[in-house]
């Protein structure tokens, strides 16, 4: 119940802050969408005003499955992370949803302003954005460094090029073995003929 309420509320809040988003969804008013989170399923219907409304649905028109990659990348990559969701169902509806989701943008400053005032909201927002960008950069740099250590220094993993070369060599070897196997089979077929006509001694 909490998940459904949270998703419905968050999505509608983002739609409200993104001009043109509800107008785009209006064309699909009445259509249903299921957000499949594996442990929970949230069924939403596009209401007459272009917003999402939680609903009781048997067969949804479209299903969205956010993958683990999306959830982990969402805080750092924002809307780019949406590429990692699996979509299925009505193609026209999915195309609209994809377009709308990619244009959603959270105006945190606008949400903070009524609570702490305009100036503080602006500064907090700038600080938050800076902190998030630094965290994303640190995360990325850490990943690269860890990768470099594992591959170059500790040699626990092979480099991509080495793996590709190894794969190529395995393929060449497999082809060679297949050819040898074919020749052996031909020789085995010809063996009885030689036995039927022994050489004169």
């Amino acid at each position, binding site marked *: *119940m*909490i998940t459904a*309420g949270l998703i*419905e*509320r968050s999505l*509608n809040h983002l739609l409200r802050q993104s001009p043109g988003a509800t107008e785009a969804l209006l064309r699909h008013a009445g259509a249903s969408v299921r957000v499949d989170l594996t442990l929970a399923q949230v*069924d939403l*219907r596009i*209401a007459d*005003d272009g*917003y999402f*409304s*939680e*609903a*009781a649905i048997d067969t949804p028109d479209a299903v969205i499955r956010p993958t683990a990659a999306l959830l982990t990348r969402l805080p750092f990559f924002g809307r780019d992370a949406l590429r990692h969701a699996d979509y299925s169902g009505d193609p026209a509806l999915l195309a609209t949803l994809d377009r709308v989701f990619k244009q959603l943008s959270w105006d945190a400053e606008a949400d903070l302003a009524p609570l702490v005032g305009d100036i503080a909201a602006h500064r907090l927002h700038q600080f938050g954005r800076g902190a998030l960008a630094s965290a994303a950069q640190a995360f990325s740099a850490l990943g690269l460094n860890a990768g470099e250590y594992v591959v170059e220094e500790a040699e626990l993993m092979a480099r991509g090029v080495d793996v590709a070369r190894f794969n190529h060599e395995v393929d060449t070897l497999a082809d060679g073995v297949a050819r040898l196997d074919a020749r052996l089979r031909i020789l085995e077929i010809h063996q009885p003929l030689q036995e039927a006509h022994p050489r004169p001694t």
Partner: protein
Amino acid sequence: MDKTTHFGYQQVAESDKAAKVAEVFHSVAAQYDVMNDLMSAGLHRLWKRFAVAQAGLRPGMKVLDVAGGTADLTRLFLKEVGASGTVLLTDINFSMLREGRDRMLNEGKTPPAVQCDGERLPFPSNYFDCVSVAFGLRNMTHKDQALAEMHRVLKPGGRLLVLEFSKVWKPLEPAYDLYSFKLLPLMGKLVAQDAASYQYLAESIRMHPGQEELKTMMETAGFAKVSYHNLTAGVVALHKGFKV
């Protein structure tokens, strides 16, 4: 012979229950909000906010607050639906309704307040986007009839929210019983000068259907996708159902 029903732990004629419940609420109306804060240590405000967050309201929507009493939910709903929306505050008890109406007037809000029975709602069918009943269903004589009426007035796709005391988590039962049957009437006596009404409150909570029973009742009344969420270890549960 008249059918009987429960009034707390007592068995009374069905026709007498509404009058007895009315007596209780006439008696507690003036101190209702103070006692709510005192009894729940302010938690009732969080429970109500949680319920409103689950209502999925947007500007322009129509909401019916059944047994809305002192208008706690109505005031929160009004913020969600904005000037273009409608929130109707209703209660069967005039004293409670007057408290709620006056409170809203003092805040400069003038939503309609209607005195009516939750079991016979004087509203058209398929009219509201959301119907709520918070701490009211417990006091109704025919809960199934009230749920059917709420189902009738909801638009298809609309949702019902039932916020009500429920069955507390088993290990906490002894402490909860001690609090309900010893402390609660004492607080009622000291603050509201009315121990009997708060004794009724504790008893009526025990007689109210538990989480699963209420869910089944809502499904029987025609609601789909009924779910519930326990709050404060099941002291209170929020049930949500949709009209399809």
